[in-house]
C-alpha cells in the first residue's frame, strides 16, 4: 500500500491543476510578523510599477504542510533580466514554476499579491492558467534531451505551441517553425525540423527548446538552469542567444545554481536559501560587494585560479603536500607479476604513465595518440568538452578498456595488455571516483559494508578501518549503518572517496567527481580531496569539463579535443597564456564573476 500512496502523491493527473491553482486566500496582517527575518518585499514593492510583467509579494508554496518557498517577493519588468541563484532545495525552481501555475502536484500556493501582466492570478482556474502558459511566459528547462519529447520531431514540438495558442493559421505553421529555428540560430532549419532531439547536439537541442518557448511570442522567458548540462563554449552561445531575446525586449527570469553564469546577463540578482530571498540587488553590487554571509560563502566557494592553495569552504590555506610514500605495492603483490620496466620503482616517482594511447569505437577515433605521466603527490587535470575522449582515457588507465595502440604503466610496471589474472593484484593501486557514486554502490549494502568491501583484512579490523576511513572523510561513525540512498549527494561522494581510499591506492582517477554537486558541497569535497592528497601523497588524475575546478586542483593540465591532446603544461601557464586556439576559446567562454 505504501507504493500506492507514494505513486499517488507523486503524480495526480486530476489534482495537478486543481492543486497548483492558487487558493487566493488573502493572507492577513499576521503574516508580516512571521516574515520579519527575511530580506524581502522592500525593494520589490518599490519596483513594482505598472511596467512590471511579474509582481509577486510574499509568495508561499507548500507541499503537504512543508513550506518550500517562504515569502518570496519578486518583480520582473519588460526587457529586464532577473536571476534567482541558489543551491538545490533553495526553492528557486518552485518559485519560477509558480509563475506558470506549475508549482507541482499537491502544492499549495499563497501570495499577498500575485499579478502577471497586470492581472491578479490568485483564484485563476486551470483554463485561465493554460492561456497564460506559453503565451505570457515560455519555459526553458535544463537538458533538452529530456525536456523535449524524445519521440516527436522538432517541428511537432514547436508546432504544438503554435497550435495551442493559434499563433498563426494552420497552413502557415510549418513556415513559422522554420522562421523560429532560424531566429534561434539553428542552421539548415528545414532539415533540422524533421529530426528528433536525440539526433541533435546539446547546443542545437537547447536552441530548439528556446524556439518552442518563444513560439507564441511570450513577454517573459523563464529559463530554469538553461545551460547546466552544456559544454562551456555552447553555454556561452546559449547565454548570448538569451541576451539577444532580452535586447529584443523580452523579460528574462533566469534560474541558476551558478553565480558566474548569471553575472554576464542579469540586471538584478536574488539569492535564495531555504525558501527565502537572503539577498537582492543589482547584479553588479551583489557580485562585487555581497551583503549577506551566504552570498559571500557562495562566491568564495567557486573554485578558480585565485582559490588555488586555499580551502574553498573557509578560505584558509591548505596543508602543503608531502611526498611521503606509503607502501608502493600492496602486500599481496610482493611477488611481482608483470615485467618490471625501468628498474625498481623509486619513491616519489612516476606512478602512472600513458604512452601514445589510441582507441576507436567503430570508425570513430575517440582517443588519439595521448601520452602523459603522473607522479606521486601530483594532480594532473584533464579538461575537455563532451566527446573529447577524456572519460575513455580514464577507462584506459583504469584497465577497464584495452588500448588499441600504446601502453599504460602503473608504478612503472606494465598495466595495459595484461591478462586480468595478472592485473588483479595491482587493481587496488588505482581507484576511481566517479560523478555519480550511487550508480556504483549496491543499494542494499550499508555504508560501512561498502567502504569495508575492498579491504583484505580480518572482519574485526575491517570494521575498525572502515570507521576510520569514514571519519577521515568527515562522516561520523553513525553513518556506517545507513544506506547510500539515504545520504545527500555530498555525503555519497564522501563515501565514494572513503571506499576509493580503503586499499591505499597510489593513484586516484577522479572523473567529474564534483559535477553533480552544489557549489558549497563541491567546495567541501574538493577541500577533502586536497587534504587527502597532502596526507597520503596520492597522485590524482582529475577529469573535468569545469576549467575553474581544474585550475583550482591541478598542478599540470592536459587540454583534450576530439580525442587528441591539443595543449599541455603547468596549469597557470596553460590557462593564463593559452597557446592553442581551442584552449583560448575554452578559457574565453568561461563565465566570469563581475
Amino acid at each position, binding site marked *: *500500500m505504501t507504493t*500506492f*500512496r507514494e*505513486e*499517488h502523491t*507523486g*503524480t*495526480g*493527473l*486530476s*489534482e*495537478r*491543476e486543481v492543486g497548483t491553482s492558487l487558493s487566493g486566500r488573502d493572507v492577513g496582517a499576521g503574516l508580516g510578523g512571521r516574515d520579519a527575518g527575511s530580506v524581502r518585499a522592500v525593494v520589490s514593492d518599490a519596483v513594482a510599477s505598472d511596467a512590471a510583467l511579474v509582481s509577486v509579494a510574499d509568495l508561499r508554496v507548500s507541499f503537504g504542510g512543508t513550506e518550500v518557498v517562504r515569502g518570496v517577493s519578486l518583480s520582473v519588468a519588460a526587457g529586464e533580466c532577473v536571476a534567482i541563484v541558489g543551491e538545490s532545495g533553495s526553492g528557486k525552481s518552485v518559485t519560477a*514554476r509558480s509563475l*506558470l501555475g*506549475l508549482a507541482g502536484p499537491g502544492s499549495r500556493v499563497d501570495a499577498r499579491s500575485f499579478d502577471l501582466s497586470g492581472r491578479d492570478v490568485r483564484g485563476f482556474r486551470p483554463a485561465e492558467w*493554460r*492561456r*497564460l*502558459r*506559453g*503565451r505570457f*511566459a*515560455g*519555459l526553458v*528547462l*535544463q*537538458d533538452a534531451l*529530456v*525536456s*523535449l*519529447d*524524445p*519521440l*516527436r520531431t522538432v517541428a511537432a514540438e514547436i508546432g*504544438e*505551441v503554435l497550435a*495551442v*495558442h493559434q499563433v498563426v493559421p494552420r497552413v502557415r505553421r510549418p513556415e513559422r517553425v522554420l522562421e523560429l529555428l532560424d531566429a534561434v540560430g539553428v542552421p539548415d532549419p528545414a532539415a533540422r525540423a524533421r529530426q*528528433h532531439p*536525440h539526433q541533435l547536439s546539446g547546443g542545437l537541442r537547447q536552441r530548439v*527548446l528556446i524556439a*518552442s*518557448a518563444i513560439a*507564441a511570442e511570450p513577454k517573459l522567458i523563464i529559463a530554469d538552469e538553461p545551460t547546466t548540462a552544456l559544454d562551456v563554449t555552447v553555454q556561452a552561445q546559449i547565454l548570448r542567444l538569451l541576451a539577444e531575446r532580452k535586447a529584443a525586449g523580452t523579460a528574462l527570469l533566469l534560474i541558476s545554481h551558478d553565480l558566474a553564469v548569471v553575472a554576464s546577463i542579469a540586471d538584478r540578482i536574488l539569492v535564495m536559501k531555504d525558501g527565502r530571498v537572503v539577498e537582492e540587488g543589482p547584479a553588479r553590487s551583489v557580485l562585487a560587494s555581497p551583503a549577506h554571509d551566504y552570498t559571500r560563502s557562495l562566491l568564495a566557494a567557486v573554485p578558480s585560479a585565485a582559490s588555488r592553495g586555499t580551502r574553498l569552504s573557509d578560505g584558509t590555506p591548505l596543508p602543503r603536500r608531502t611526498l611521503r610514500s606509503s607502501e608502493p605495492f600492496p602486500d599481496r603483490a610482493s611477488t611481482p607479476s608483470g615485467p618490471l620496466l625501468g628498474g625498481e620503482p623509486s619513491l616519489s616517482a612516476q606512478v602512472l604513465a600513458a604512452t601514445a594511447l589510441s582507441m576507436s569505437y567503430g570508425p570513430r577515433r575517440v582517443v588519439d595518440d595521448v601520452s602523459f605521466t603522473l607522479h606521486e603527490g601530483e594532480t594532473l587535470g584533464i579538461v575537455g568538452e563532451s566527446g573529447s575522449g577524456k572519460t575513455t582515457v580514464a577507462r584506459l588507465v583504469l584497465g577497464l578498456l584495452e588500448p588499441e595502440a600504446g601502453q599504460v604503466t602503473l608504478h612503472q610496471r606494465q598495466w595495459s595488455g595484461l591478462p586480468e589474472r595478472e592485473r588483479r593484484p595491482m587493481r587496488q593501486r588505482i581507484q576511481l571516483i566517479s560523478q555519480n557514486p550511487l550508480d556504483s554502490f549496491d543499494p542494499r549494502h550499508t555504508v560501512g559494508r561498502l567502504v569495508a568491501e575492498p579491504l583484505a583484512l580480518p572482519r574485526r579490523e575491517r570494521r575498525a578501518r572502515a570507521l576510520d576511513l569514514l571519519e577521515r572523510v568527515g562522516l561520523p561513525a553513525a553513518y556506517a549503518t545507513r544506506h547510500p540512498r539515504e545520504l545527500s549527494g555530498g555525503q555519497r561522494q564522501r563515501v565514494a572517496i572513503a571506499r576509493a581510499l580503503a586499499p591505499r591506492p597510489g593513484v586516484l582517477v577522479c572523473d567529474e567527481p564534483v559535477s553533480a554537486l552544489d557549489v558549497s558541497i563541491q567546495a567541501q569535497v574538493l577541500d577533502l580531496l586536497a587534504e587527502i592528497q597532502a596526507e597520503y601523497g596520492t597522485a590524482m588524475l582529475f577529469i573535468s569539463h569545469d576549467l575553474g575546478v581544474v585550475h583550482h586542483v591541478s598542478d599540470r593540465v592536459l587540454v583534450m579535443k576530439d580525442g587528441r591532446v591539443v595543449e599541455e603544461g603547468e596549469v597557470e601557464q596553460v590557462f593564463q597564456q593559452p597557446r592553442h586556439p581551442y584552449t583560448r576559446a575554452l578559457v574565453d567562454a568561461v563565465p566570469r564573476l563581475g
Partner: protein
Amino acid sequence: MIKRLGTGLAVLWAAATSSYVALLLAPGDTIDILIGNGVDTPEIRAKIVAEWGLDRPEVVQYLSYLWRLLHGDFGRSYQLQRGVGEILATQVGPTLQLTLAAAATGVSLAVIIALATAGRGRWLRGTASAVELVSVSVPPFLIGIVLLSVFSFTFGWFPVSGASGPQALVLPALALGLPIAGVLGQVLRGGLERALEQPFAVTARARGLTERALVARHALRHALIPAVTLAGWFTGTLLGGTVITEALFGRPGLGQVAMQAVTGRDMPVVMAVVLLSAVVYVAISTLLDLAYRAIDPRIGG
C-alpha cells in the same frame, strides 16, 4: 530487417524440426504413431510409407518432410481421413474471430482503464489495481465459467455454446481478453505515470496544453513502448487460451482441433498446429518489431 527475417525463418525451421524429432523419438513404430487411433489396414500402412518416404534413408525423409512443408503440404490425418491443411483451413476462421475479438477487448479495456486511472485518486487506482490483479491471477477457464453461469445461465443474455453470430463471441472474447487487459492495463498506467513525471511533460504543460492533450499527444506514446514489449507474452496467452476457451464455450476452432488431436494421438495434426503457432508467433513479433520502430525513433532503423 534482413536479420529479423532470418531469425524468423530459423524459428520456423526449429519448430518444424523439433516436431519431426518428437515424431521420431516417440515410443513405438512411426507408422503406428502416425495412424494413431485411426483405421489400421495394410493399404493405409503402405500409403503412409509412401507419403512419408519411410522406405528411404532418414536424411531424405527429413528433407522431403521440409520440402512438403515449404509447399504448404501438412500431410494427412489418418484418423479424420482428411488432409491436415484442409482441416486447419476450415477451423481457422472461428479461432481468428475469437483471438482478434479477445485482443481488441483486452487492448481497449486496458487503454480505457489506464487513461481513466493514471495518476488519479488513491481509491480509484487501488480498485483498478485490485481488479487487474484478480483478472490476471484467475485462470481464463474460471473467468469463463463465472461469465457463463452469470450471463448465460442466470440472465440468458448470451448463448451457452456454439459460434453462431456475434452474440456467441462476447463471453469467450471476454474470458480470453480479461487477463490481457489486466496486465496491459497495469503496464500502460505505469508508463503513463512515468511519462507524466518526465521533464518534457513539464515543458508541454508550460506550453498551455491540457492534461488530456498531454496524455494523448505525448504520454500515451511513451506508455506504448513497454506495452509493445509484452507482445510476445500476449500472443502466447491468446494461442494457449483458445484451447481452453473453445472447449469451455463449445466453439469450433483450432483449439478444439489441437485438443482432439492431442487426446486422440493424431500426430500429423499436432505437428501442423505446432507449426502454425510458430508461424503466427513469428509474423506477429515481426509486425510488433516494426511498430516498435515506428513508435520510438531512437531505435536505430
